[in-house]
């Protein structure tokens, strides 16, 4: 029955070829460090699911943000779990992405023909830090407020465009409702959209080129 449905679909959509290309591709003899990319992808997926769930109750305005987060944590069934996963998942994202990058550096996996994969990877790391930076403000507690005050102030010391950057990030001189709303917009729309786009390219290249092998001494 299952195979029949599968065959019917395959005749029309050709999914088996896609499936095989993704999951049955040939890989060289590698070690566990080569799972860091998949681990990052898995946590990213969890972040996506829990993030979407959080938006069901979270409200990004100064008069509701803190209270809605408290409501999620203390009142909504499993709210503590969803928020906790998203909170710790954020740290896991940064750690895993960096470890993944270190593996690529130390095994020289960024070299020909994988330069473009590397470029998209670097951008993806920036996006992950962007997620961390914008997400940190959203609970709108003291820690969030002052961390973002300091974080945006750091951007302002960039030569030439610093002050302008600060204005764009804060949406004005001070950290206000405008800042919270734009951080939220960036966190749930701009960054996820960019992530999805770059991740698609990243994954396509990984599948097309195949993953690198552990370099040998004579390489």
């Amino acid at each position: 029955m299952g195979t029949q449905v599968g065959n019917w679909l395959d005749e029309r959509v050709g999914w088996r070829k896609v499936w095989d290309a993704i999951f049955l591709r040939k890989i060289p003899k590698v070690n566990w460090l080569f799972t860091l990319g998949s681990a990052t992808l898995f946590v990213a997926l969890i972040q996506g699911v829990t993030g979407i769930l959080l938006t069901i109750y979270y409200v990004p305005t100064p008069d509701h943000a803190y209270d809605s987060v408290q409501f999620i944590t203390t009142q909504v069934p499993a709210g503590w779990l969803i928020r906790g996963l998203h909170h710790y998942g954020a740290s896991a994202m940064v750690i895993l992405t960096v470890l993944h990058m270190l593996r690529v550096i130390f095994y020289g996996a960024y070299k020909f023909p994988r330069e473009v994969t590397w470029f998209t990877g670097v951008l993806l790391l920036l996006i992950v830090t962007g997620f961390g930076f914008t997400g940190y403000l959203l609970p709108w507690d003291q820690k969030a407020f002052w961390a973002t005050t300091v974080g945006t102030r750091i951007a302002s010391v960039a030569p030439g465009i610093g002050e302008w950057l600060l204005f764009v990030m804060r949406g004005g001189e001070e950290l206000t409702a405008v800042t919270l709303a734009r951080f939220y917009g960036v966190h749930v729309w701009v960054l996820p959209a960019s992530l999805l786009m770059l991740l698609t390219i990243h994954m396509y290249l990984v599948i097309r080129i195949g993953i690198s092998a552990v370099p040998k001494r004579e390489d």
Partner: protein
Amino acid sequence: MSEEKGLSRRDLLSIGTLAIGGIISVALGIPAVAYIIGPARRRVQEENWIRLGPVSKVEIGTPTLFKAGVERQVGWIINEEEISVYILTDDGRNFVALSNICTHLGCRVRWISDQGQFFCPCHNAIFNKQGEVVTGPPPRPLDQYVVKVEDEQIYVLGG
């Protein structure tokens, strides 16, 4: 493991992957559903007596409208809501408290004193003085509050 004919290394791995994936999906899926349907399972916290006003205001034989402010916590917001209750008495001792919410689709009914009946403007429903349906689509009479009189004040039980 020659006993387990047909279970290749590949099969074992895919079964294992599916099993772990399934466990993770369920472990995240069940809390996710609970999280989403959470508010639907919440009942109104506690009921308390809401003071409407003095008994002397009630006209005998005519539904008299009382309004009262009610604080209601929805999510993390405390709302000030107003409830409207028609108090009806025929003898000044026994009181009936009718909700002004139409039992059809929740519009507000009002007492038309010329005709001696309640009228709902949404679908032209008509209820009689006791709140029973005369014409129109409402499935049941107007809802009633539990009512009590204390120190010449009328109270209804509401949440």
